[in-house]
């Protein structure tokens, strides 16, 4: 292999020398080179698609025993009992959906405000530095978030946030019951922190794409800076923001390690946000390695399949919204 490369490089230098002296045809015709490149690139592009199809196929095959055993009841039952070989995924679906949406509720206003600050208020180099710091958060490995959550966030939630919420919103069933710090609320907060950079950077790009002339027009008509941001920046970006939020949702749905470490891993459906829960991704990570029965493994694959379907749909929706938005803004 190595030898071939050496020979090739020798050949090509020889060839280029000969090209300078006498213009002669290359080893493979230019048309042939084009064809070869096209074939190679097409192969690369299609291989991604093939991997996706193979993955879905394999998941289906592995989930088949559970699908044929439980059918669609799997989605409506919350009984998860590996000892009795009884499996239902509702508690995990509930946990995933609740934590993800709570995370969105926290992260969306934060991200939009941050994007406005970076793109409209800060100027020049400072804006670049701040946005870089925000994006750096996205590069922190999720296990680090998990550890931080376990050793810092959870005790804080238990000692500070929970008493505050109980005092102010304690009349709602969502904010009642004992809190150990570890639970749905803490997991949602961690998720919110993790998806904020994703949403912020996309929203910032959308704000930056607003033509300067519109902003100047708004100011020229006597709008204050706040009104200008509201009329000229926020309003035309709404669908783009929605797309960014849905993309953040996609990340929240699939997040595994940080959530598994801090959610309490108890597959029950409880009204209280303080109580422990479990998500689809966390149960797969927790139980796959030591799953004993074939049905247990298969049920985990069934959950994976459901998770796959949900994230696929969510991402598809986000891309469609953003694509739609881009096309409109180009007009």
């Amino acid at each position, binding site marked *: 292999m*190595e*030898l071939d490369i*050496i020979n090739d490089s020798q050949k090509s230098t020889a060839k280029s020398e000969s090209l300078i002296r006498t213009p002669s045809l290359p080893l493979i015709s230019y048309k042939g080179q084009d064809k070869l490149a096209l074939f190679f690139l097409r192969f690369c592009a299609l291989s991604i698609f093939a991997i996706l199809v193979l993955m879905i196929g394999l998941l289906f095959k592995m989930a088949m025993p559970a699908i044929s055993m439980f059918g669609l009841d799997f989605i409506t039952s919350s*009984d*998860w*009992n*590996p*000892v*009795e070989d009884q499996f239902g995924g509702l508690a995990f679906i509930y946990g995933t959906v609740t934590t993800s949406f709570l995370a969105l509720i926290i992260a969306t206003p934060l991200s939009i405000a941050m994007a406005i600050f970076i793109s409209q208020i800060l100027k020049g180099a400072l804006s670049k530095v701040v946005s870089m710091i925000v994006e750096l958060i996205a590069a922190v490995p999720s296990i680090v978030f998990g550890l931080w959550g*376990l*050793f810092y966030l*959870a*005790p804080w939630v238990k000692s500070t946030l929970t008493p505050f919420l109980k005092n102010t919103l304690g009349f709602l069933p969502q904010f009642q019951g*004992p809190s*150990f*710090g*570890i*639970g749905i609320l803490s997991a949602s907060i961690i998720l919110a922190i993790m998806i904020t950079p994703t949403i912020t950077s996309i929203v910032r790009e959308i704000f930056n794409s607003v033509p300067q002339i519109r902003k100047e027009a708004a100011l020229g008509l006597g709008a204050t800076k706040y009104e200008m941001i509201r009329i000229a920046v926020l309003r035309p970006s709404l669908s783009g923001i929605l797309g960014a939020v849905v993309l953040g949702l996609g990340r929240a749905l699939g997040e595994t390690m940080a959530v*598994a*470490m801090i959610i*309490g*891993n*108890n597959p029950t459906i409880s009204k209280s946000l303080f109580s*422990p829960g*479990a998500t689809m991704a*966390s149960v797969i*990570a*927790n*139980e796959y*390695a*030591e*799953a*004993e*029965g074939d049905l*247990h493994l298969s049920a985990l694959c069934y959950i994976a399949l459901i998770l796959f379907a949900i994230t696929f749909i969510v991402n598809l929706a986000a891309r469609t919204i953003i694509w739609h938005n881009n096309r409109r803004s180009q007009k």
Partner: protein
Amino acid sequence: MRKLFVGLMAFIAMNTMAATQINGAGATFPYPLYSKWFSEYSKENKDIQINYQAIGSGGGIRQLIQETVDFGASDAPMSDNDKSKATRQILQIPTVLGAVAISYNVSEVTANIKLDGDTLAKIFLGEISKWNDPKIAALNEGLKLPAKDILVVRRADGSGTTSIFADYLSTVSKDWETQVGRGKTLKWPTGIGAKGNDGVTGAISQNDGAIGYIELAYAINNNLKVAALKNKAGEYKLPTVQGVSLAAAKVKSISEVTNSIVDADGKGVYPISSFTYILLPVKEKDAKIVEVKKFLKWALSKGQNFAAPLHYAPLPKRLALEMLKEIK
């Protein structure tokens, strides 16, 4: 360039030829001891290199059945279902014993509390939810117990530790056996799940009022308080290496090593003890299996001395000799 390449190839070839590579996979529980064993053994036998992946007992058994590894390791003996899937007969050799400690964190209590099996089961079933419950108080006369909520912490991931603990509770409590049962992953009536022994350790040390089960080494290394458990002879025993070894004192032959030894008879026994096994496929004249057997002979004799410092209990001498005969 070419010289460098040839040199590199020769170097790789030399390395692969020099050492016989043996691959194993399985339990995480004995991993600290096993990695110590493998490195010590390689020092004595330079031509043997043992790679071990601590992917969990279940994964180890699966890889062994598919024959992608030379040996497996598991905390629980293989189930009949798994045995029937394997194409060969599989020898299950106990290597050391481990204990599951009951750790707790109650800031008011400085002494070791005493618990019996029934009370422990009721705590983990959620039937006892306060530390000053009369059942706990009756076992700990003279100890001032606070009226704090009990937070049960257990493993979220499937685990051999859970399996040993559930086996013990099922043995001592009918309620536990019927309501929850045995297994590596259970349907827990109460509490929060944490990942791994370190996760449970962390959750216990952070939450005042928490109780959980962890491997003995984790309790000792993290200075957690442990409960003294009542054994069959009626004594309250703290988890110690000696108490764990004694639990296996009555086991004498290879046919008995796969029997459960929780709540074992005898004086001085710590009741939540268990073997951990290396699983060896029976193949005739296979060079690698011969090497694994050589290693096992070393592990069951000289290797046993490395166990206690790492808080594993060595096999009782008689049983180790019996196993050595069995391996041949």
